[in-house]
């Protein structure tokens, strides 16, 4: 296996996994695959793919401007590859953006619904327009290869300068408007990153990092395909870029100094540490290495400097897009699925890049192989429309296999719990405590109910009234506590243990004892508990058990109490308050528990958000016989 094959195999594997997770995201919602939340609505797709991706694609307009507007013919060789890099960079960002949109099929809406005060509106338009420009700029390359539509190719080549101009103008807006987007978060974004100069900073950093990303891509191609490096040209390009990179760092530091926020960089917080790392990567390392002629002309120097700069600027954008936004909720860390989708989009773009580099005439003048016996170039058989024989082409079987296996592994590897529970917190119920008076607070949030158990018994008619609430008991038990079956605060509990019942009754031969042989074997068509366990359902129980799923504790408690309370409120005209929340949830609350339990709820806003579906209770009242 040569290195291209290994590299591509890895890319195909990640892409396969990402496709599986991406489809899951589409069918089960963002919550199923991501850790995005109401406190962190934007995650790794924005912070890693979109914002840094757009910056790294900036070579498309910077280098084309250098070649066609500043007429530096010596870089002409890289014109096609820089346009391709930008095109794929934008496709990557757009794909990640679409994956992140809640309603990806509405992505075209900014075209018809205008809102010109919105920075994101401007961004959307720029992405659409610039993608079109890049597409038209790159189109001649594949057209040249296929030999068809020669007229369009000639037209596009003739008016290339117009496209270059449009590219520069649109990119200027686009790069800066990404910065504008975060001007609206003055208090949320950390002081070391927030600045009213964000649009300018984004533009300058993009101009600096675009060519450096191109150099990194050329270094990669050279390493993968054994091409000789033209270090003189690359050094010239890098030398110019690093001046702009230094300008970016300078504007940032001066801006911070003027705002009096430079001291924050040394306050010892983790944000300050990240800031210093960012400055080291985006300013110090590239400037030191590329500032020295000897290092600039050495491939190793170029490698280190470009990787540092690309990471540094990427980090700058990721910090602004999310890492440094203040949040009051739990810390966001992307899930494995999110990271894979993020990398998968990049992998797919990298595969497309390599495809173009291998198949199309990307260099106009030939770029020879450094090896003694290079592989024969691929040949295309026009009659059969298949690619013939080089070892790299033969790798397609391997790639297909890897992709499909990765896809299958991805599908199998998705946690079914994540999809089914839809993010519901699994809170085990704490039984009601107390004696004659009970304190019902299943999730210990301090917002419970003081339930006068003895009073209710006396009022409702002594022992005969038990069945009004206790509608089902464990075998050989009486008045089993609610928490025995309603075990989860917010989710239903499956109280029927199939394995416990099947083996005592005769294993696989005993299905028909409970299931109707004529019908599908489901919960709904099986016998009810009472048909065998007549001791489980007490005589006169008004609440019927319809299925083997015990509703959540919260639903069960609200259901059983509020059904009566609503009836009583309707009957007794002067007791309207009986139907109100405060009738049971007395705000002051009793303190059966030690203070320490409540202490944690003291200072934070507590989380009481469960309300029963009111219409459901009303329906129960209408249907009840009384």
């Amino acid at each position, binding site marked *: 296996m040569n290195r291209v094959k290994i590299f591509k195999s890895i890319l195909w594997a990640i892409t396969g996994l990402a496709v599986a997770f991406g489809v899951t995201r589409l069918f089960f919602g963002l919550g199923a695959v991501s850790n995005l939340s109401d406190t962190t609505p934007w995650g790794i797709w924005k912070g890693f793919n979109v914002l840094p991706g757009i910056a790294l694609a900036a070579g498309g307009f910077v280098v084309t401007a250098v070649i066609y507007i500043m007429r530096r013919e010596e870089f002409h060789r890289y014109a096609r590859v820089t346009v391709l890099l930008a095109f794929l960079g934008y496709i990557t960002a757009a794909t990640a953006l679409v994956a*992140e949109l809640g309603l990806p099929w509405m992505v075209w809406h900014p075209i018809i619904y205008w809102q010109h005060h919105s920075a994101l509106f401007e961004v959307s338009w720029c992405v659409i327009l610039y993608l079109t420009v890049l597409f038209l700029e790159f189109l001649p390359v594949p057209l040249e290869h296929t030999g068809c539509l020669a007229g369009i190719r000639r037209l596009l080549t003739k008016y290339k300068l117009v496209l270059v101009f449009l590219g*520069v103008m649109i990119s200027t807006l686009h790069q800066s408007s990404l910065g504008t987007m975060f001007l609206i978060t003055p208090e949320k974004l950390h002081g070391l990153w927030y600045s009213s100069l964000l649009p300018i900073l984004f533009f300058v950093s993009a101009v600096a990092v675009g060519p450096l990303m191109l150099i990194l891509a050329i270094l990669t191609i050279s390493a993968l395909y054994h091409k000789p490096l033209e270090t003189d040209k690359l050094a010239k390009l890098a030398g110019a870029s690093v001046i702009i990179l230094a300008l970016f760092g300078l504007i940032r530091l001066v801006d911070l100094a003027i705002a009096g926020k430079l001291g924050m960089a040394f306050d010892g917080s983790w944000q300050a540490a990240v800031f210093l790392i960012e400055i080291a990567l985006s300013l110090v390392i590239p400037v030191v290495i590329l500032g020295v002629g000897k290092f600039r002309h050495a491939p190793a120097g170029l490698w280190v400097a470009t990787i540092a700069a690309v990471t540094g600027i990427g980090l700058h954008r990721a910090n602004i897009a999310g890492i440094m936004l203040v949040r009051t909720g739990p810390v966001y860390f992307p899930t494995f699925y999110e990271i894979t989708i993020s990398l998968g989009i990049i992998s797919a773009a990298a595969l497309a890049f390599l495809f173009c580099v291998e198949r199309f005439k990307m260099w106009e003048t030939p770029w020879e192989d450094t090896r003694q016996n290079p592989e024969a170039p691929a040949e295309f058989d026009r009659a059969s429309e298949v690619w013939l024989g080089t070892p790299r082409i033969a790798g397609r079987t391997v790639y297909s296999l890897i992709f499909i296996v990765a896809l299958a592994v991805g599908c199998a590897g998705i946690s079914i719990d994540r999809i089914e529970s839809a993010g519901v917190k699994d809170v085990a119920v704490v039984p009601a405590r107390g004696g004659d008076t009970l304190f019902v607070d299943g999730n210990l949030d301090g917002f419970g109910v003081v339930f006068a158990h003895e009073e209710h018994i006396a009022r409702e008619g002594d022992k005969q009234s038990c069945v009004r609430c206790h509608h089902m008991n464990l075998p050989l038990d009486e008045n089993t506590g609610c928490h025995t079956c309603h075990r989860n605060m917010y*989710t239903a509990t499956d109280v029927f243990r199939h394995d416990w019942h099947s083996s005592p009754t005769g294993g696989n031969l005993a299905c028909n004892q409970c299931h109707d042989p004529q019908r599908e074997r489901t919960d709904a068509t099986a016998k009810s508990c009472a048909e065998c366990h007549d001791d489980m359902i007490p005589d006169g129980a008004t609440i019927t058990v319809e299925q083997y799923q015990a509703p959540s504790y919260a639903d069960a408690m609200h259901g059983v109490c509020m059904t009566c309370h609503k009836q009583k409120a309707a009957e007794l005209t002067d007791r309207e308050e009986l139907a109100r929340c405060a009738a049971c949830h007395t705000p002051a609350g009793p303190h059966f528990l030690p203070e320490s339990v409540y202490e944690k709820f003291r200072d934070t*806003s507590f*989380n*009481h958000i469960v309300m029963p579906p009111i219409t459901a209770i009303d329906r129960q009242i209408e249907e009840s016989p009384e």
Partner: protein
Amino acid sequence: MKAILTDVTKCIGCFECVAACKEAHGLANDVPRKWHRNDGLSARNWTAIIQKPGPHYIRKQCRHCLEPACESACPVAALVRTETGAVVYDPAKCIGCRYCMIACPFGIPRYDWEEPVPYIQKCDLCYDRISHGQQPACTEACPNGATIFGERDELLAEAHRRIKAEPGKYINRVFGEHDLGGTAVLYISDIDLDFLAYPARSRTPALPATTAPAMKAVPPAFLGMGAIMGGLYWFCKRREKVRAEDKKDEGVE
């Protein structure tokens, strides 16, 4: 312009407003999910009661800013401030970018994270009801008159009157009168309510003003960049020509 005034000292934390809101908007049963922010609001709870030591009960809901950050952020005008003062959401326009959630200084908009077709969820000041002359479900349900509905200037006057009438009782400030350009949902309180704004203090200027200068600079930047590039192109072309001529001259000599 309509508004809501909530008197924190009068709220007894009975949750009637929350229940009424759920009923009025047909919001389904809700359970705590891992993506909820721990303040009671969620995609199914458009208003919530926050308990603070005391106890104090503070009703949280969309503040219906006079200059909403969400409205200026939304790229498709799905969030719009109406003439009534209510900031309403149009799900048919929304693309699900969630920029409003980033922009909102009060952290109000919530998202249907569990849905394959998710929407933004937030209080709409019962726009349907108030445009038919009714009052919002929450203020109607309040048994204690702690949260009331009316014209904003009248409620502001009422708020100042209450503060003046009992000087020691309230903090001498109507929360929402000037914060972030002013909001339609006002509070008077005996405890500081700045925690309601996302970063624990509210700024005086409205947020849309932060992006406005940059957005205004867009057309000049676009044309300016074109002009600069045009000038550069002309200059470089000219330099090339002069150099070629110089070379030719040298050749003649």
